[in-house]
């Protein structure tokens, strides 16, 4: 058992998703299954469905800073300020050198590098026209660093590179640093600017893993028999993490406690997932939370809409949760696409509202459920009113065989 000084709770959430710029708006859109995925036209690549965020970019910093920085930094600054505001905090509420900023990224620098090569093409590839902003924009700590500069935070900041498990991994880092007493507050979450890179779309396409549909809102269809791949989205979601002691001292609103987490590696294949290791990862998180499968009310799946990825995760869940058919299962990517480094944290945030209203938002775009994905209590196409959600298990997996699981509990026991 951890002491209250080592128990970590979520007290604020700020986000930018393709269909929302606040947690309440996000929740409403998810419950109603409203997707705002659109067709975009990418340099060299052409048209593809994608998720683009529409938040007020100059709410918290000048246009000049947005031009100088990166898209991920811009999203991160917005989400961080929103999260602090949501938590009822200001940067000065804690000693500025006792706040840590941990940002999960799937990749970073791809967009900026592509843009610069395109820029110097206009000057006959003369590299004297290569921007001096390239290095500060592409160092891997860039988005976290932009957040510290905007908020005046002088504690540690860095990125967690963990493919599409990065969002969960950043929250785990925040929990660990709080427990170690390295910081008094963690600003942790995930960001993605991947829609700015034609190469990311082209690589998924070459891999046979990019979604395609006449209606872009219907392109991402996890668990459907006709699913055909990933919809790339940009996005961000930043959490304020505090110890239970400090949150209680300031009478903070608490969304829930991070009671369990786990990460492991498939050690098998660069891109193909592996259900047995996913089972081990979920089991480890349950063990750390001192829970069994029947204690989990809702599983927020990672499923991206690829044939094998969805199959593997469903096999893992079916295997581990065989004795817990009442556990609800849903999927958020069907509505917002795959926000890469922000995916896990956005998907968890989208489900936090179920602690209050008991509603489980649906996996949309399931026209014909794949029998391999027909899990017992899978919520498809329409939201379900449960008798109450008290625990969420949040899966997030990624390339190079990285797996991550978070368990969040509503009640502070």
């Amino acid at each position, binding site marked *: 058992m951890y002491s209250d000084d080592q128990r970590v709770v979520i007290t604020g959430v700020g986000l930018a998703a393709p269909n929302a710029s606040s947690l309440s708006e996000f929740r409403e859109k998810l419950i109603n299954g409203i997707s705002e995925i659109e067709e975009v036209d990418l340099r060299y690549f052409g048209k593809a469905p994608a998720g683009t965020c529409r938040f007020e970019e100059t709410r918290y910093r*000048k246009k*000049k800073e947005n031009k100088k920085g990166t898209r991920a930094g811009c999203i991160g600054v917005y989400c961080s300020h929103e999260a602090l505001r949501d938590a009822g905090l200001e940067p000065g509420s804690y000693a500025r050198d006792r706040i840590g900023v941990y940002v999960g990224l799937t990749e970073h620098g791809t967009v900026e590098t592509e843009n610069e090569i395109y820029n110097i093409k206009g000057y006959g590839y003369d590299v004297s026209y290569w921007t001096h902003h390239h290095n*500060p924009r592409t160092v891997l700590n860039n988005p976290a660093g932009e957040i510290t500069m905007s908020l005046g935070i002088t504690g540690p900041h860095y990125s967690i590179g963990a493919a599409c498990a990065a969002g969960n991994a950043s929250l785990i880092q925040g929990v660990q640093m709080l427990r170690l007493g390295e910081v008094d507050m963690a600003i942790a979450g995930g960001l993605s600017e991947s829609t700015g890179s034609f190469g990311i779309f082209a690589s998924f396409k070459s891999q046979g893993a990019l979604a395609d549909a006449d209606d872009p809102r219907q392109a991402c269809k996890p668990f459907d028999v006709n699913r055909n791949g990933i919809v790339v989205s940009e996005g961000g979601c930043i959490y304020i993490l505090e110890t239970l002691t400090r949150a209680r001292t300031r009478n903070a609103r608490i969304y829930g406690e991070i009671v369990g987490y786990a990460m492991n590696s498939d050690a098998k294949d660069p891109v193909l997932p592996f259900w047995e290791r996913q089972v081990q990862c979920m089991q480890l998180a349950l063990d750390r939370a001192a829970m069994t499968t029947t204690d989990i009310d809702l599983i927020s799946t990672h499923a991206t809409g690829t044939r094998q990825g969805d199959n593997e995760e469903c096999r893992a869940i079916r295997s581990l949760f065989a004795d817990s058919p009442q556990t609800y299962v849903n999927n958020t990517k069907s509505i917002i696409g795959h926000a890469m480094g922000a995916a896990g944290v956005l998907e968890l945030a989208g489900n936090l509202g179920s602690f209050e209203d008991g509603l489980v938002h649906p996996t949309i775009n399931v026209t014909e459920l794949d029998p391999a994905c027909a899990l017992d209590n899978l919520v498809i196409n329409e939201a379900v009113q449960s008798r109450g959600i008290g625990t969420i298990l949040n899966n997030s997996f990624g390339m190079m065989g990285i797996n991550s699981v978070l368990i969040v509990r509503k009640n502070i026991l």
Partner: protein
Amino acid sequence: MTRDDIKDLILEIIEDIDDEADFDDLDPDKPLRDQLDLDSMDFLDIVMELRKRHQLQIPEEDYPHLATLNSCTAYLEPLLKEA
């Protein structure tokens, strides 16, 4: 380019960098960075824009000439005489 043209060019470049830049009380003999919200990277943007717009390759040792609006204009005048 005349001296006035060059001044306008510099102010236009700064405005592109920061559309909120306020030139009303700008003293042409005081360093630009002391009066405007410009950091070292923004300053290099001015150098890059001069390169892009007028193919000027300003050597690093000449950067101090770009400190104030007047010194900048004086430095650029012969370079942009034909522009």
